[in-house]
């Protein structure tokens, strides 16, 4: 197994700052905007973005969305995926939603999340923010609007995002290869 560092703690800090600045650049007014972190791992990134925006005097409501019951691989794997908490303490109807996840790979989670989100209402606009975009691995026509870093990967590789918020020692992003 090979482990290659993609982003270290310092680079990650800069990347997060840039993502926040891009959000501010594209949203002149955050009054109608909400952040929605995707369970299970996107929520930690969403919390970091939420805090960073707060320190920039931008207050945006934050929610967690679990898409487990909307996944398209149910009954196609040995064990059912375990669901996590969904917490959407605001109306989705008419909002500008920023979906946040750590890694964009096949796009299937995002598709499920779009479905799950629509159970709460019809948003005015939906954007996608990801920390790592794995290029050329998409199964579905889905693209992110805000990307921390593009990475060339194979199907057999894995991207590991370690965040202090989720219990890791340091903020780091790794690319893991089997051989």
């Amino acid at each position, binding site marked *: 197994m090979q482990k290659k560092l993609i982003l270290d703690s310092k680079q990650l800090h800069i990347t997060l700052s840039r993502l926040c600045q891009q959000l501010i650049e594209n949203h002149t007014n955050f009054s109608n905007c909400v952040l929605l972190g995707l369970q299970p791992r996107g929520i930690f990134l969403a919390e970091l973005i939420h805090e960073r925006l707060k320190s920039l005097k931008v207050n945006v409501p934050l929610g967690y969305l*679990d898409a*487990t*019951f*909307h*996944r398209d691989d*149910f*009954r196609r794997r*040995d*064990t*059912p*995926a*375990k*669901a*996590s*908490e*969904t917490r959407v303490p605001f109306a989705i109807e008419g909002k500008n939603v920023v979906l946040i996840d750590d890694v964009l790979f096949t796009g299937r989670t995002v598709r499920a999340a779009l*479905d*799950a989100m*629509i*159970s*709460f*209402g019809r948003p005015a606009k939906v954007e996608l923010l990801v920390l790592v975009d794995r290029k050329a691995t998409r199964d579905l026509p889905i693209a992110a609007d805000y990307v921390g870093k593009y990475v060339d990967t194979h199907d057999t590789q894995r991207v590991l995002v370690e965040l202090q918020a989720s219990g890791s020692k340091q903020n780091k992003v790794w690319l893991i290869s089997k051989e």
Partner: protein
Amino acid sequence: MSKLSQRHLLGIKDITRGDIELIFETADNFKDVINRPIKKVPSLRDVTIANVFFENSTRTRLSFELAEKRLSADVINFSASGSSVKKGETLLDTVNNILAMKVDMVVMRHASAGAPHFLSKHIKANIVNAGDGTHEHPTQALLDGFSIREKLGSVEGKKIAIIGDILHSRVALSNIFALKKLGAEVMVCGPPTLLPKFISTLGVQVELEVKKALDWCDVANVLRIQLERQQLKYFPSLREYTLYYGINKKMLDDLKKKIVLMHPGPINRGVELTSDAADSHHSIILDQVENGVAVRMAVLYLLAGAA
């Protein structure tokens, strides 16, 4: 683990504490789903479920049907009255005919104890027992446990009294198994004629006076007198039963602590519970019904997902 240890839910006796906890955790998520503007998820959209009821039911059948529909399953309903069972078809033939129509899961209620266990040895589909005679009613016990956990934070260490017709109650037996597995203390209370002789071998306390049971417990789960199952006279009259074992609001208000009142339904108002007790702030009877849908969704989801 996010997988049940069994392919079927035949009884609480066969499943582990881990299974029960997994069902509860999954039901938490489904309870959230059924409180959304759109109360439906697409998980079971390629699954067909047959609700096969050889015995009458309102709540359980509606609850299962709603759970199945909320999961986007295709549902067919069968009830013994008005079917070919009357013409002499055997249980296995009836079910095999239903399965020949490409059904993936069977939810079954039957008047004979062990009917779903028998079926599970002969058919491939997943089976959920929705009550077999006076034996088990696992989803009721799960929703009761889930409701206690929701109301009191956990089931572990809590004192739960099951009061009434224990002898004819599948709810009582499933509840005893479930609550013991979750680490609760369980007491049964009722007239001696309605207490099975060896019930204490299940590790439960036996109490004959309802007042003492109420003083002891954190939760009172009151059961219905099942007159339809009683071929003998177990007590002189319903009035006498009410006099000695009926629970009213004053009895609950006079207790030193606040207890939770449960009932699996249907309530015989004025027999085991007076109306003012059933509708009091002690009662979580309607929460039990709401939780029933979430818990059944969890069971169906976990069984279908591991197929």
